[in-house]
């Protein structure tokens, strides 16, 4: 397979080569040549309205470089006398109506228009000033000064393309053109949600914040409030609105950590991300790499059931995941056998906690004295729009984590290093907003995906509604089945939160199948298995009236503990047995919904839509192919799954272990570690303990559709259907 040829052009006498589709502006930028602009912002689609970025491409007229695609053999001059003269006139015209100094220049001294004008040596304009346009102070959060507006459309694109609010637009014609909110309503009376995107996009003082946002990060741990000038000097804040930083000064704070100090702890809830300016930090998981196992009763008359921690090396469970790395909220994953990694300057961690308020996935400790920036979500959002930072984050991901993720895909284990290196450079990294569909059921399949950040919901459509198959987190993958034979997608994949995925284009995937026949064989076997399971699942779903089940949420369950209330004497033998079987921590409560004469006890239902899986910071709660929910060894005991379970069916089981005492080096102290547990149907026994211990034949573990089939008027199984 041949590589896509690059385009070669000359910019300011320098030969450069760029990918097809690159604009002249970006071609210059990546080669270190700056072209001034006003209407172009890196995170928005360029429109070429301001004409500040005009360059001489040897044509009859100058071209707006932000929208002009680079062509092979093109000779570009970004700064000739004619080009500079054109820009100078443009600046003069714009400054003629500009109320200098505007609000932004007054607040933070970085009005982009006035900065360019000053650099061009423009003082008083020779052009007459038009009549002043009105101010709009109706919004409680944002001041609108139409006089300072240069109609660059950045605010319109920010409001529409980025935030999807679509409040702003242009109104009027010619010299009477203005930006308008809804149908020219005052901003405060429009549908504006005060997200501030227009304000941070505006290059001048036309849209400015009215008051300092009241967020403030704590002042402990050697906090030093970074000045706006200091922040603007950092590459990651390049092109960020100084007004924004000024008015959110306490939302980003510089912290100093001495060697050995803890930056954040695994399991703690938080709302900030960290960017390392200097020094190194050590990222690790201190929870034991083990899962909860209950056993003992099957070995003899007097043997007692007990719960204890055991690793997968000593206790391999059916369909155990053999992944070697633990996904965390950082640019790297941790090795299962040695869950420690190091991060250095220029690296960002804690994004998922900051954006989605998930618990911290690991403990971060200063390896050396270090300085970090701690920031809230609004600042992180703004930082992430910076293409330089994005490129840096992408590069780090490709170098440090992508190969691990690829190796974690069982199909890719047979690939050689050369192919993996090639894949590493050819994958695309894409972001999706919460609720955005990544691929839809039935669409032609054209890509394979790996989850880099966030959560992706995989669901199937059927007659009665939607069935969630899985929630995928960092390191998981999807889309391989549809690629076989150019087929269609078998499920819809939707970003549950701010998700980032690695996309392997179909042609690369097919190249891999051609080159590695074993991969193809493995894939075909998996595809056949899944299609068979899908077919069976759909057949059963289609045979049962769903309404009554759906009303009680019973359809979501694959396994229910039901108590026949006409037999149950309310003796609580089931609850006592469960507690006895699990060191006093019961996993069932004799309380819940009623369906006919049955009580649906509060115990893990092995739900089809496992909400417990959403948000796990280390991806340790997953489901087997049998759809049974299982908790992996690297559970850090944060309790988010327990909070997410709508039925309260997940418990945190405490265990005591000896750990190093940080206050007394060399000594150990007892610490309590928690691991999440839920009903595992006492898989080490022939029958669940609750059912076994019920003296009245009232407790049963059932598959709801089959068990209730007579009540629903549907056949219990296809066999029974055939028999009838």
């Amino acid at each position, binding site marked *: 397979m041949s590589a896509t040829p690059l385009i070669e052009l000359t910019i300011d006498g320098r030969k450069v080569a760029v990918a097809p589709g690159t604009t002249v502006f970006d071609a210059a930028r990546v080669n270190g040549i700056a072209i001034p602009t006003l209407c172009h912002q890196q995170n928005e689609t360029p429109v070429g309205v301001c004409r500040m970025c005009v360059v001489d491409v040897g044509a009859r007229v100058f071209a707006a470089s932000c929208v002009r695609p680079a062509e092979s053999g093109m000779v570009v001059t970004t700064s000739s006398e004619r080009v500079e003269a054109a820009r100078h006139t443009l600046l003069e015209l714009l400054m003629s109506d500009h109320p200098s100094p505007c609000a932004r220049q007054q607040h933070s001294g970085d009005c982009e228009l006035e900065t360019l004008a000053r650099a061009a040596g423009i003082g008083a304009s020779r052009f007459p000033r038009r009549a002043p346009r009105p101010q709009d102070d109706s919004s409680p959060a944002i001041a609108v000064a139409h006089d300072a507006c240069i109609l660059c459309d950045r605010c319109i694109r920010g409001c529409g393309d980025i935030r999807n609010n679509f409040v702003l637009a242009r109104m009027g014609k010619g010299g009477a053109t203005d930006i308008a909110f809804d149908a020219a309503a005052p901003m405060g009376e429009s549908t504006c949600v005060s997200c501030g995107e227009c304000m941070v996009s505006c290059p001048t003082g036309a849209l400015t914040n009215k008051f300092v946002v009241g967020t403030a990060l704590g002042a402990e741990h050697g906090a030093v409030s970074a000045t706006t000038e200091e922040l603007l000097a950092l590459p990651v804040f390049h092109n960020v609105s100084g007004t924004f930083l000024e008015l959110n000064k306490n939302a980003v704070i510089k912290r100093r950590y001495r060697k050995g100090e803890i930056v954040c702890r695994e399991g703690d809830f938080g709302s900030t991300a960290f960017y390392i300016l200097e020094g190194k930090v050590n990222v690790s998981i201190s929870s034991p790499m083990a899962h909860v196992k209950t056993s003992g009763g099957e070995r003899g*008359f007097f043997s007692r059931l007990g719960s204890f921690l055991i690793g997968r090396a000593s206790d391999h469970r059916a369909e155990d995941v053999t992944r070697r790395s633990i996904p965390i909220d950082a640019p790297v994953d941790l090795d299962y056998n040695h869950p420690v990694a190091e991060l250095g300057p220029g690296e960002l961690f804690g994004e998922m906690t900051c954006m989605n308020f998930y618990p911290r996935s690991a403990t971060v400790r200063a390896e050396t004295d270090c300085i970090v920036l701690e920031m809230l979500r609004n600042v992180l959002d703004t930082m992430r729009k910076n293409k330089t930072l994005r490129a840096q984050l992408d590069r780090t991901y490709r170098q440090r984590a992508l190969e691990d993720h690829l190796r974690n895909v069982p199909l890719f284990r047979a690939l050689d290093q050369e192919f993996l290196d090639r894949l590493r450079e050819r994958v695309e990294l894409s972001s999706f907003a919460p609720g955005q569909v990544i691929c839809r059921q039935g669409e032609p399949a054209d890509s394979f995906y790996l989850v880099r950040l966030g959560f992706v919901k995989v669901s199937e459509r059927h007659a009665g509604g939607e069935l969630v198959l899985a929630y995928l987190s960092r390191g998981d993958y999807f889309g391989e089945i549809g690629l076989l034979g150019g087929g269609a997608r078998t499920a819809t994949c939707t970003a549950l939160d701010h998700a980032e995925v690695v996309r392997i284009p179909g042609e690369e995937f097919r190249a891999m199948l051609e080159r590695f026949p074993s991969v193809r064989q493995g894939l075909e076997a998996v595809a056949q298995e899944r299609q068979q399971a899908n077919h069976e699942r759909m057949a059963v779903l289609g045979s049962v009236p769903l309404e009554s089940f759906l009303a009680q949420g019973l359809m979501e369950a694959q396994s229910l503990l039901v108590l026949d209330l006409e037999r149950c004497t309310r003796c609580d033998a089931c609850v006592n047995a469960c507690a006895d079987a699990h060191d006093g921590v019961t996993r069932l409560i004799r309380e819940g919904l009623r369906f006919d004469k049955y009580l649906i006890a509060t115990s893990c239902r092995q739900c089809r839509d496992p909400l417990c899986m959403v948000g796990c910071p280390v991806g340790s709660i997953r489901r087997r192919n049998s759809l049974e929910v299982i908790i992996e060894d690297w559970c850090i005991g944060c309790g988010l799954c327990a909070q997410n379970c709508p039925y309260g069916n997940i418990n945190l089981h405490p265990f005591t272990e000896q750990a190093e005492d940080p206050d007394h080096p060399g000594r150990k102290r007892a610490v309590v570690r928690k691991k999440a547990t839920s009903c595992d149907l006492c898989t080490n026994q022939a029958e669940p303990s609750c059912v076994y*211990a019920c003296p009245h034949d009232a407790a049963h573990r059932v598959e709801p559709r089959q068990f209730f089939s007579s009540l629903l008027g549907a056949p219990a199984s296809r066999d029974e259907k055939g028999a009838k």
Partner: protein
Amino acid sequence: MRIDRTHTGWLVASCVLLGAACILYSLARPPASTAPMGGTPLGLGFGIAGFAFMIFAALLGARKKVPVWRLGRAQTWMRGHLWLGLLTLPLILFHADFHSGGPLTTVLLWLLVIVVASGIFGAALQHFMPATMTREVPLETIYEEIDHVRAQLRAEAAEQIARAKTIAVPENPDEEGAAAKAAEPAAPLAAFYEREIRPYLEHAPGRSALADRAQADRAFASVRLLVPTELRNAVDDLENICEEDRQLTRQARLHRWLHAWLLVHVPLSIALILLGAVHAVVALRY
């Protein structure tokens, strides 16, 4: 435990055992002039079998203390307890040749009769009561949580009244008593709450009209007529709260019925086992 078709095997086996015992007894019982039946090999056999069945029945309590030990399903133990326990009575009667004997054996016989009778009574309760409870107490909760739920109901009722007092009612001059209703629309409801609902929910001494469903329905119907439309929801909520409390009271009563008989059955069973052991030692040794 519900006695249903799944007990057929046990019933048949018990009948067969009983039949065999009856045949043996009628064929082999000694003439009245000879030594007591209990001392004969057959009598001893009946006694040992009967006592063994008693021991097995008593071990059900111990079995329940170790619910997860794999000693056989609890259900099997319970069925054994019922049927073998029932069989102890005819076996011991055969052992005693239907004579009470001395003071100890007389006490033992009475204890056995009471224990078996209480056991049959308990089995009957466990057969019928769960269905009754399911039918009559749809708002059932865990028995130990009843007091906590009642406290929540009291708090909810107080909140309802507090909220009702803040509801403003627009004046409707055409409505009878409009002026009074507009001035203090929640007054009748508040008075009813203080007079009837709160004492009932707090289970103050004395009989409350709200304890009976029919009377409660009539009382709330009267209150509905006295309050404006805007407060009808509050009245409905308070009525539901009282209904839930009635159900909890019913549940507590049924639960006590379902379990109180054990206060007779269990101690007397223990006494029966102990005295039976004494009798065995005394009778065999002396």
